[in-house]
């Protein structure tokens, strides 16, 4: 076997973390909502840090349905975009060091999004993961699961369809 020597772990991590940071930091609404992404290999877990402004029912109290919908849609869009970006940087199609806010690929556009509210969102941190069930050249279907204390007790889930950005070179704007 004469496979090439694997890259040093730090080089690999830096490349992936930089790409993810550019993707997430570019979205002002993620910052406003207190949403961050934790990466393990290619798997992302979204975290929505609890803040009083996310409350929809002050008497219970419970998270606002709109805050939950925002969290799930953000998880779906970043998860979907990350999948493409991961492939691009890991195959060398895009050099990670060339990525910049200006050259980042366009984000997918939501066509429709359906949220199931399974139980009240408690006033504490929430977590979510997206699963891309199908991703074609133009359309993608994504499922998202969100939980708080127990991974097995979802408090919300969602399914959405997305229009993929056209892929003409480095994030060139077409249409």
């Amino acid at each position, binding site marked *: 076997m004469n496979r090439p020597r694997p890259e040093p772990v730090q080089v690999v991590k830096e490349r992936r973390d930089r790409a993810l940071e550019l993707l997430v930091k*570019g*979205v*002002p*609404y993620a*910052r*406003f*909502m207190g949403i961050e992404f934790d990466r393990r290999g290619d798997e992302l877990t979204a975290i929505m840090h609890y803040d*009083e*402004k*996310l*409350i*929809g*029912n*002050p008497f219970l109290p*419970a*998270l*606002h*349905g*709109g*805050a939950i*919908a*925002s*969290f*799930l*849609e*953000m998880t779906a*869009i970043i998860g979907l975009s990350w999948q493409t970006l991961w492939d691009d940087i890991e195959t060398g199609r895009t050099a990670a060091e060339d990525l910049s*806010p200006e050259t*980042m690929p*366009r*984000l997918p*556009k*939501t*066509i*429709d*999004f*359906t*949220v*199931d*509210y399974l139980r*009240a969102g408690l006033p504490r941190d929430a977590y979510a993961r997206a699963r891309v069930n199908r991703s074609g050249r133009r359309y993608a279907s994504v499922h998202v699961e969100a939980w708080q204390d127990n991974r097995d007790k979802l408090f919300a889930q969602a399914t959405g369809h997305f229009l993929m950005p056209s892929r003409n070179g480095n994030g060139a*704007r077409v249409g």
Partner: protein
Amino acid sequence: MTLKAGEKARIAKQFIEAIPFSKALGMNLDDIGDGFAVISMPWSEDLVGDPQSGVIHGGAVSALMDTCGGAAVMSHPDAPAGTATIDLRIDYMRPATPGQRIIARAECYNVTRSVGFVRASAFDEDEDRPVATAAGAFTVERPKEKEAKA
């Protein structure tokens, strides 16, 4: 309810505009009546989902639709004491124009003992082309009923 229409609307306005998340997004209750509500939200840099275009994130539009849908259920003449979203589906027709206010109108077109059904749509300044439409089901929490269990 024995409240006059104007008073009911005033209370609803205070109630909705005091919801922390609605307040954080700058929502304003423009109109409310029997089973319908109109709520608007200004464009803001904080709500941008696509930095390259400045278009508001779909999640913020969902939040507006959800709040407006809940308000429509609460304002229904059958007067539920409270409500929570069971499910909400949003269809995005086009990106909202950056810099423009988004206005959502929701109608609670049917209420059963336990469920309120809602349709909603959202527009920016172009009132001929919707930005998004929504359909949802909301819980209907009754003011404490006599101990009867169905």
